[in-house]
């Protein structure tokens, strides 16, 4: 299975290595650097590379490459999924997954890697189990640690691995028992030049933050489960109950986790909340072009559109932009050629508009591409998944319960 892992930063330095079997020389990474060079864009490095004696499987997360070395046949997704799980765990422990953070906590990260794999095969990947063995750093603990000289290694042996709910640690205690669920729906859409929808769908996710004492058994039911077309669950969800009753029954992990991902059935038409009127033209004759974009609300069901942001990737030939925005601010990054227009709240009375001229080199090729991000608070769509109730069994206290609904743009793109 997984033989070794190298963490490589943006500029190509290996700053952490871990071997689960015998040591493999760093020089194996040269094949990767070669491919990295060739790909230009770090996103375009092939995730799987073949070298004479090894296979390299890598992921790119947070400007870091996680590069694993494999010697024999293994399902590539197995490795990729595991590497992402490593990145997730680091993020979970330290709040972010970046070079600086990993370097600062290099011993903890190394220990984590030691626990996560045994002989290259995943051993403990549940964050609750890991946290029992290696405690995540907190400010208080780091102060105590410097004073007493103790470290983050748990002094009790973890029991989580032994239980049949490995995702939950035993003996959880809170004074405030609370369970919050965020139902986040993302609109993925491609709009074409004239504004008609080429493709649109709604993907949803239920993010949970559960801080409950003991071993609660929760049941979450929905008003309209028929909306759900395709779902995937956290392993804690009892699949049989879902099959037969369409309720989510589970013993939750402690803390934050993703309970469920779902796809809203395509029978329901997706209401696109905004429209975009755009014209960008480059003059054949001179080194300039014009840009004019207007954005307006459409099918918002009376809700306001917030955090509206438009990102435009300009062709390489665009040198600079001289624009005026009626609302919000815009920035144009000269190196990456990305124009970002931060609009904020969308005002239906006075539609935001961005217009002006672009200075370009003579040869223009390609069209700019738009990516929009926007956020709508509360229930927006008629066909939004609604939670009807949450019940708890197995514990006596009454928890605080809360559900928040949010609709935002996922991969929302306007073509030119």
């Amino acid at each position: 299975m997984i033989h070794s892992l190298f963490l490589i930063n943006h500029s190509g330095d290996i700053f952490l290595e871990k071997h689960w079997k015998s040591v493999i020389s760093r020089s194996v990474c040269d094949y990767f650097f070669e491919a990295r060079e060739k790909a230009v864009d770090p996103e375009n490095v092939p995730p799987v590379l073949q070298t004479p004696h090894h296979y390299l499987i890598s992921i790119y997360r947070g400007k870091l490459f996680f590069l694993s070395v494999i010697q024999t046949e293994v399902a590539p997704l197995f490795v990729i999924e595991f590497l992402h799980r490593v990145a997730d765990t680091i993020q979970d422990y330290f709040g972010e997954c970046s070079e600086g953070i990993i370097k600062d906590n290099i011993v903890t990260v190394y220990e984590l890697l030691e626990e996560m794999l045994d002989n290259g095969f995943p051993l403990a990947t549940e964050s609750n189990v890991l946290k029992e063995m290696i405690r995540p750093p907190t400010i208080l603990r780091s102060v105590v640690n410097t004073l007493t000289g103790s470290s983050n290694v748990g002094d009790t042996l973890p029991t989580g691995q032994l239980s049949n709910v490995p995702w939950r640690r035993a003996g959880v205690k809170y004074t405030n028992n609370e369970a919050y669920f965020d139902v986040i729906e993302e609109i993925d859409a491609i709009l074409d030049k004239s504004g008609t929808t080429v493709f649109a769908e709604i993907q949803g996710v239920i993010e949970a933050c559960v801080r409950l004492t003991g071993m609660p058994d929760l049941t979450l039911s929905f008003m309209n489960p028929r909306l759900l077309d395709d779902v995937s669950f956290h392993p804690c969800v009892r699949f049989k109950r879902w099959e037969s009753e369409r309720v989510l029954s589970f013993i939750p992990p402690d803390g934050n986790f993703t309970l469920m991902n779902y796809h809203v059935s395509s029978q329901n038409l997706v209401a696109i909340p905004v429209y975009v009127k755009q014209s960008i033209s480059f003059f054949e004759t001179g080194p300039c072009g014009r840009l004019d974009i207007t954005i307006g609300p459409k099918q918002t069901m009376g809700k306001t559109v917030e955090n509206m942001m438009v990102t435009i990737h300009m062709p390489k030939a665009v040198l600079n932009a001289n624009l005026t925005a009626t609302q919000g601010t815009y920035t144009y990054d000269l190196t990456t050629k990305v124009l970002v227009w931060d609009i904020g709240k969308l005002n239906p009375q006075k539609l935001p508009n961005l217009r002006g001229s672009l200075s370009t080199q003579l040869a223009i090729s390609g069209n700019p591409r738009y990516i929009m991000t926007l956020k709508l608070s509360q229930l927006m769509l008629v066909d939004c998944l609604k939670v009807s109730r949450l019940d708890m069994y197995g514990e006596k206290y009454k928890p605080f319960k809360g559900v928040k609904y949010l609709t935002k743009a996922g991969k929302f793109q306007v073509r030119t």
Partner: protein
Amino acid sequence: MSASSAFNDEKGGSSSVGEPEYGHDPASGGIFSSDYKRHDDLKEMLDSNKDSLKLEAMKRIVAMIARGKNASDLFPAVVKNVACKNIEVKKLVYVYLVRYAEEQQDLALLSISTFQRGLKDPNQLIRASALRVLSSIRVTIIVPIMMLAIKEAASDMSPYVRKTAAHAIPKLYSLDPEQKDQLIEVIEKLLADKTTLVAGSVVMAFEEVCPERIDLIHKNYRKLCNLLIDVEEWGQVVIINMLTRYARTQFLNPNINESLLEEGSGGDKTFYGSDEDEDEDEEEKEKNAEAPAMAKRKPYVMDPDHRLLLRNTKPLLQSRNAAVVMAVAQLYFHLAPKAEVGVIAKALVRLLRSHSEVQYVVLQNVATMTIKRRGMFEPYLKSFYIRSTDPTQIKVLKLEVLTNLANETNISTILREFQTYIKSMDKDFVAATIQAIGRCATNIGEVRDTCLNGLVQLLSNRDELVVAESVVVIKKLLQMQPEKHSDIIKHMAKLTDNIQVPMARASILWLIGEYCEHVPKIAPDVLRKMAKSFTNEEDIVKLQIINLAAKLYLTNSKQTKLLTQYVLNLAKYDQNYDIRDRARFIRQLIVPTEKSGALSKYAKKLFLALKPAPVLESPFKDRDHFQLGSLSHLLNAKAGGYQELPDWPEAAPDPSVRNVEVKDSVPEWTKCSSREKRKEKKVEKPFYSDSEGESGPTESADSESDSASGSESGSGSEESGSGSESVESEEGSESEEEEEDEEEKNKKKKKKELKKPVQESESEQSSEEEERKPERKSKQRKSDSESESDEEESESESSQSESEDSESEAEIKKKKKAAESKPPTKPVKKENKKEKKEMSLLDLDDFEPAPSPQVTPVNTFLSNSLVTDLEGLSLSDTVLSPATIAPSSALKNYELLHRITGEGLSVEYCFSRQPFSPDANMVAVQMQFTNNATSDTKNLHMEDVKLQSGMRVKEFPEIELLPAGETAAAVMGIDFCDSTQAANFQLCTHTKKFFVSIQPPVGELMRPIFLTENEFKKEQGQLMGMNEITEKLTLDAKCRNEHAIVQRVTTAANLSRVPCGSDKECRFAGRTVTSSSLVLVTVATKEEGAAQLTVNCEKMLIGTMLVKDILLALTQ
């Protein structure tokens, strides 16, 4: 105490060993003096007595290791801390040991005794971690010690230690392959383990050590299938991949009949579209050619174990782990019957939302799948549309999938999509798009001209790369039919002035040379221009210029003789030897001299032979001989350690090898700790509930028992069983009826149960489960009885009533209220009485769990058998209820296939209004097949179901033989998703296929439910406004009495009557089958046949349609 003394001993010992070790190595000290010094202070810290200093030192050392710096010279100083009491230091020492033991074998031996002691520790976690570190130390000398430790750990009480033993097996194997035989014995033992914790790890060990010993799996096959859903996700991947290979060796190809069928009806082949598919079938046919006669006579029956695997892996498609989803997808692709493979498409499409690396791998696999099974992904075409933000490698893969999915019907949308891609900034992607257009054009004849025109338009694109790529593609397309397109060739000839990309220039020149007869005037002129610029051209262009010259010389030597000679002279002195070679060769061939041999006579034939058009095919063709999802498939090359996916056997090996004797399981059970036992039961459960699930109507009751067993993992067992009951009643308005339903069922089962002695019903239950093998039965009974005793325990332990107290009070009140408020109308009266009696019973076991342990087991015992009792009952439900008029007499028959179009076969169907047992969300459709022909019809089955998204079909079982003049019946289920969309499918016989479609009247999309008048009014009150539709009507003369109205309404829609106090009103209630939305119908009659029809339905569309249907029924 003993440990600390040992520690002191060791400390003394190792330091004496350590120091001379350093003495040996003066170089490190001399040259890297600063290094040496730094390590020196680390050594000092390690030698100190303070744990905090040791810890600090170890942290710095581990940080060095992590950064890849060499810390091996500290080995002696570190290793003596292996017995340190501070667990944090110890852990870090372990980390160090595992990293450097291989390099310092002798010193590493010093630590072994600590681990050996650890292996005997009473704490299972310490035993496990000792074994883990011991086995990770790659020192050959300790192989025997490791072997012993593994063997011992393999029979440890703790499953966690056994898991660690399984992990240690491949470690030892890689250290010393000689131990294989002994290790296989351990693997065999661990494979028999029944805990989910061990299963994944041992299969991983099996795969690494002895993947060829498939015989070890036989006995454990069923167990692994059943455990699968509870194994941790990484183990699932390994097990599924292994089982795929296993199934390929043990079961028959489920698609064997289909390939034979196609052989019989050659005319229909085009339906399957792509040429590749046909080739494939051809191959398959040849493969099967030896045994067709036999296979034809003996229709394929799927091995129940094969089915078990497919059934138990399917829920894992819902996993959050992409690797698990992919593993199940490849299992289905390789093992499932054609009709069932479709289920994986949705899950794979879901993965496309994940990280780009995941997308990359999934798209590669989808690309391979689309070549074989295009129909599967066609509904998800739009999910493969390309976003400008995708990385190029993803874009190219999506393009590949889109191209594979293209067919006559969707090509126009795909081409439109391609057109927008051409405008992209990403040049590689644009080039790939143009290639893709070319492939669509070659594969789909209808659009060839359109594509060609589109590509020609691209020739005037501003971007040279686009033009160049188009030229290359056009060249390939023109080769297919050059006669028609001389104008395009002319157009391209003009391009030679501007276009600079060598590949494109070369392509144009080749085209002109090849088809110089079509452009006789232009060709020599092009050659003239090229001759002029010859020296400045790229090599491939030069070669094509020589070719062009040669071809023109042969066809039109008068005009081009001199030019050709000029070109050949230039080439003669070219720097590139290929070009010089080519020039010499061509000169000899075409210019007749006395020396030239017989070959020059044939020069024209050689150069202007008709060349076959190139076949543009997908690079993913035939990749599926690699197991999908594997590294080898991704690389399209065999990776080390890849296990070939075997071909299906011609005849199935003996299935009885998988039978397990019951005896084995008994001692295992007693060995397990109580926790494991629970786990086991949880594992047994899916199997148990599955087989019950097949008998549909029990599902709601089933879920109750389900939740009870589910809760075993968490809280007190009885608790949530009753809990689920209380949820429903608390849920309020919406679920009120459900509750009622539930109650009714409960009541029924109670009634039955009262009549029957407990033992009897228990045995009945087991006899009903026909498929089950005897040993399973007994095992289950075992588990039943075990669960009782288990519950007994937990019951007595947990103080039961706490959580319910608050809830149950309200509950009881509510229930009582409901019971009291029931109106004393005639038809229900009897029932109410029963219900009330029931109520007390219900209250007893739901809300007042008896404190004494004797009572509860009886309860659970009963509820187990209740499920089966209910099975028989619920069918008669409608008949029993006096308010419902059984509509069986009024069932309307629809024609599915007419005798004439069906060439003798006629099919009728009706909506039987019976609950469809395999799936409660489906509408049962009863089909009647009549064979009016003179010959027998064989293998009647359905195929190629085309549905609106969300709809599902459960096919009727294949009818093997329908003799002439005979009639047969079958039932299928369709989940219409509460819409009146038709379900289209093909009805296939052994020779013919007929397209048919079933469209349900809206009234059949619901099932009757029982409501009381009050409930009805309450529900109606909540479905006002938009959800209410009212129509005035005049009743048909024949149906002015109540009976007639009821008759007509229930015929039009599958509703049940709601008792009603007034005789002026008739009320009906039902729920839609899929979404269980309430449907309420009221017909209020007035004088003179005037009436008012009111329909309340959450689904407005259903409501509107229903109003129309009922109006029609009442006014006719």
